[in-house]
């Protein structure tokens, strides 16, 4: 592949946020762009009284999704299949309200799992989605929680895990950071600060400090034009005080953290790249969410290439093994680059998942790397979206005040 944007590309930056579904964050965009597979007014679940619970644009920044909606393997299985455990079952996406009801036994509260944001409440995410490329079919890698899904972004597999278990070192496939480092390329995971640290603990254990930096270092590296070839950014996972006593808000958007703080975090990353003209010209920024967090999405996750691992029934909690042959729930994903055509909507015929991240970085920086998981080898890559012959000068900017 050779386009001017691809030829100029030097840096890939990935920001992985937490626990929001595509419909919840971007589904409202269908009203203004029919190509976006979002909410059209027909989507609903049935609550435990038998009443229809429609998807509604009533999502709030905070205080609505407490308790944290279930997103562990059995809970997600219920959300997708609505309790059907028969062979040949069909994914209906009709179990979200039922699943959320089981946590608080409050019918009215359970219906809030269907709520989504009107675009004006998410000016950063929706602007980037409409100005650059939005993916109609980017799914979590596993119908389960955070850590196994994030593992796919780092390794192209979760090594058979479907939960939050400790990941053991010396696994059979190298992380994307190790692969790049071995090839004399540069790669870094930027966690927010030491009080938030990283969820990629095995690499933290093995490769401190060469693979890690803080968010402030990311900003500094952008300013100095010293960004590594590949960067993975983690948001702040908790409300805590900074070293000088200032209040630092969680920016991961995990319920029940304030969603706007995550918007500001996304904008800060975009601005940092955008402010350095040389960096802006040579960087592709992927913004993606690790999993849906138990929140409604209407697109059934498709089957996928089996990963070669099996999670046993005691690990899945469903009484059945899982062959890693089906993706998790759909999540928001946006690719930002001045070489992406405004209003690009990646069609429903192209399916992406988190293994697409190391697959893309490997393809671009290393071209070939044989020893990868079956899922990563089969994963779609996304740099063909840098289609423009001339770099755009109309990209938006965000005023963070």
């Amino acid at each position, binding site marked *: 592949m050779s386009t001017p944007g691809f030829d100029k590309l030097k840096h890939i930056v990935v920001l992985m946020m*937490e626990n929001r579904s595509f419909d919840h964050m971007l589904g409202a965009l269908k009203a203004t762009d029919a190509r976006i597979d979002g909410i059209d007014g027909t989507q609903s679940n049935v609550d435990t009284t038998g009443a229809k619970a429609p998807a509604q644009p009533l999502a709030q*920044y*905070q205080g609505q999704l407490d308790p*944290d909606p279930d997103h562990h393997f059995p809970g997600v299985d219920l959300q997708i299949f609505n309790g059907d455990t028969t062979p040949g079952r069909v994914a209906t996406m009709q179990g979200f309200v039922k699943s959320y009801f089981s946590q608080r036994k409050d019918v009215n509260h359970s219906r809030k799992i269907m709520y989504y944001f009107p675009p004006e409440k998410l*000016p*950063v995410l929706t*602007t980037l989605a409409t100005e650059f490329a939005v993916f109609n079919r980017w799914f979590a890698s596993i119908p389960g*929680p*955070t*850590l196994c899904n994030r593992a796919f972004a780092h390794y192209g597999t979760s090594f058979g895990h479907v939960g*939050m278990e*400790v*990941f053991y070192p010396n696994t059979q496939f190298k992380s994307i950071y190790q692969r790049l480092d071995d090839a004399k390329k540069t790669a870094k995971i930027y966690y927010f600060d*030491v*009080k*938030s*640290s990283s*969820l990629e*603990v*095995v690499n*933290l*254990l*093995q*490769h*401190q*400090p060469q693979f890690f930096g803080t968010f402030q270092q990311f900003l500094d590296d952008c300013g100095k034009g010293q960004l590594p070839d590949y960067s993975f950014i983690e948001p702040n*996972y*908790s*409300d*805590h*005080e900074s070293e000088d006593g200032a*209040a630092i*808000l*969680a920016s991961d958007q*995990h319920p*029940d*953290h*304030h969603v*706007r*703080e995550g*918007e*500001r975090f996304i*904008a800060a990353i975009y*601005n940092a790249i*955008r*402010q*350095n*003209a040389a960096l*802006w010209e040579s960087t592709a920024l992927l913004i993606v969410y690790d999993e849906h967090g138990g929140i409604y999405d209407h697109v059934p996750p498709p089957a996928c290439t089996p990963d070669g691992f099996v999670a046993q029934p005691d690990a899945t909690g469903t009484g059945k093994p899982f062959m890693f042959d089906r993706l998790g729930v759909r999540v928001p994903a946006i690719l930002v680059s001045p070489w992406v055509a405004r209003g690009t909507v990646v069609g429903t015929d192209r399916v992406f998942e988190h293994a697409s991240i190391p697959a893309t970085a490997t393809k671009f920086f290393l071209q070939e790397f044989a020893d990868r998981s079956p899922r990563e080898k089969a994963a779609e890559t996304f740099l063909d979206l840098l289609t423009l012959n001339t770099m755009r*000068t*109309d*990209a*938006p*900017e*965000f*005023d*963070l*005040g």
Partner: protein
Amino acid sequence: MRLNSISADLMAVIRVPKTPKSAYNPDRPAGTLLQSQLKHLEWAVRPAGARTAKAFRIRQAVSEAEAAARIARLNEELHAQATAPKGVVPPAPATPLSAPATPKPTAKAKATSRSKPKARPAAKARAARSARRPRR
């Protein structure tokens, strides 16, 4: 703030309001993600032989602030282990697997805390950590 370094004639400026201060709640109960992160970090600072499931139990963090403080301390320990010269025994973990977050003071730190009974817990923890850290 405008991005003056980029020249463009069709640049939209989108204002993103500040998050309300009322959103800040460090006393919010630490969720599954933070508890898992703590567990993983506690696991990572152990010597390999102490990472067996049987030996591995930690106390859960009550609040996000507590989780953040413990995560910072564990991150610091991991960093010290990773950057220690080869052959140097890494510092012992700050807490036993099932102990409270605040490390037990060493003899020296205890003496300090007796003479200053109103010392803040964070200061005591720093003193204890400092006493345990190998001198270079």
